[in-house]
């Protein structure tokens, strides 16, 4: 059986980890490569690096980081943040990234999904969708959730699947940062309506939340940042609990 995946997410700015990490065994808490190695050893199934820097040097710095991570880490990783062209993706994959995540650029130019999928294969194209409920409707938001659109989450998800996305990374902005659990109803609806894997994001606060995302939300993978960075949840403990709940997991 295919296992459910646990994915720590690292926010990167100018080649360094930001938003704080609290690892006593780290020499340098800002070094994404060192953090990636620790996560890979502690049982993470995959990693996501989200680049939030906006400098002109960004592309070069990110490519260098990807190369360093690929040299050290023997599990798959995805890179996202400001990717908007075939050329951007080509550079990241050539340096050793396994997948890329696109978000706002896909909404602005949906044809980009088709182009990337045709050139690199759908398996390495993750479309990230940020959404929140407005008057009972799940609406897609852009630029890290700051800019609302009129686009319906479920319609957009269906469209990106048809255009060639290999996976969907769904972040519920209503849940993100609350530590009150994932958006399981929306997750389940996505999972039932789509035939590509769904990664749940936003709301992880305890181990039960992850279990619920898989059992109630029918997610294929769950992503979180701070609960792992601040060691509120150890991946090993999480996976042992998942196994007790009869969720397929790599231990």
């Amino acid at each position, binding site marked *: *059986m*295919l*296992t*459910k*995946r646990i994915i720590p997410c690292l926010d990167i700015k100018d080649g360094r980890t930001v938003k704080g990490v609290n690892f006593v065994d780290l020499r340098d808490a800002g070094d994404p490569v060192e953090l990636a190695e620790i996560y*890979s050893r502690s049982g993470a*199934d995959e990693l996501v690096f989200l680049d939030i820097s906006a400098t002109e040097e960004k592309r070069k710095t990110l490519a260098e980081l990807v*190369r360093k991570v*690929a*040299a*050290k880490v*023997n*599990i*798959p990783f995805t890179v996202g943040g400001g990717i908007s062209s075939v050329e951007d993706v080509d550079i990241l*994959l*050539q*340096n*050793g*990234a*396994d997948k890329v995540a696109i978000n706002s650029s896909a909404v602005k130019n949906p044809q980009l999904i088709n182009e990337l999928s*045709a050139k*690199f*294969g*759908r*398996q*390495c194209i993750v479309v990230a969708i940020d959404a929140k409920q407005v008057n009972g409707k799940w609406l897609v938001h852009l630029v890290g959730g700051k800019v609302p659109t009129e686009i319906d989450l479920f319609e957009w998800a269906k469209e990106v699947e048809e255009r060639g996305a*290999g*996976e969907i990374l769904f972040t519920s902005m209503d849940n993100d940062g609350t530590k009150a659990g994932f958006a399981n109803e929306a997750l389940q609806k996505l999972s039932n309506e789509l*035939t*590509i*894997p769904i990664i749940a994001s936003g709301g992880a606060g305890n181990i039960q939340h992850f279990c619920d995302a898989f059992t109630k939300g029918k997610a*294929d*993978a769950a992503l979180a940042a701070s609960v792992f960075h601040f060691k509120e949840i150890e991946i090993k403990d999480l996976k042992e609990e998942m196994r007790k709940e009869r969720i397929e997991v*790599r231990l």
Partner: protein
Amino acid sequence: MKIVIIDYGAGNIQSIKFALERLGYEGILSSDAQEIKNADKVIFPGVGEASSAMRKLKSTGLDTLIPKLNQPVLGICLGMQLMCNWTEEGDTTGLGIFDVDVVHFEKKLKVPHIGWNRITDLKTPLFKDIQENEYVYLVHSFYAPVCKETIAKCDYGVEYSSALKKDNFYGVQFHPEKSSDAGERILKNFLDL
């Protein structure tokens, strides 16, 4: 030991090169026929779409070179699929090394098959010191059914070939370079053949 990774523009070969480095070996990326022939071990990678990958192999003559190689050859993912007779992806004729046709997963399953899954019925020294039910990382939408050349199986709605072997040719559907320590061990086993 001279290890050549066949370079035909097929996606994520940097990861394989890095995995070899972690094991203490250097992998040379090459599309040169003489260099490939002279290698002790040949790795045939592949990520992407089958018909366009096959066109690239044909345009460089690698399609006739690869089946004639005598040293151990390891096809990875699409590389393994292209070593089969035929693949449903783009209705593509393969290199005909493994006597099996590659087909698409049933539509009722989530495809691509992405993530970690168990490998079973492990045969040959490629899986030396690898436990039955070990987890490996996979990303694919097409699969080779179980056949007489199967040396490892995986179950995703259907039991299929996770690895194949014929003579000096090996193929793995999973990504050893991304399958944590077990994957690195399998790569090491290949280098030790």
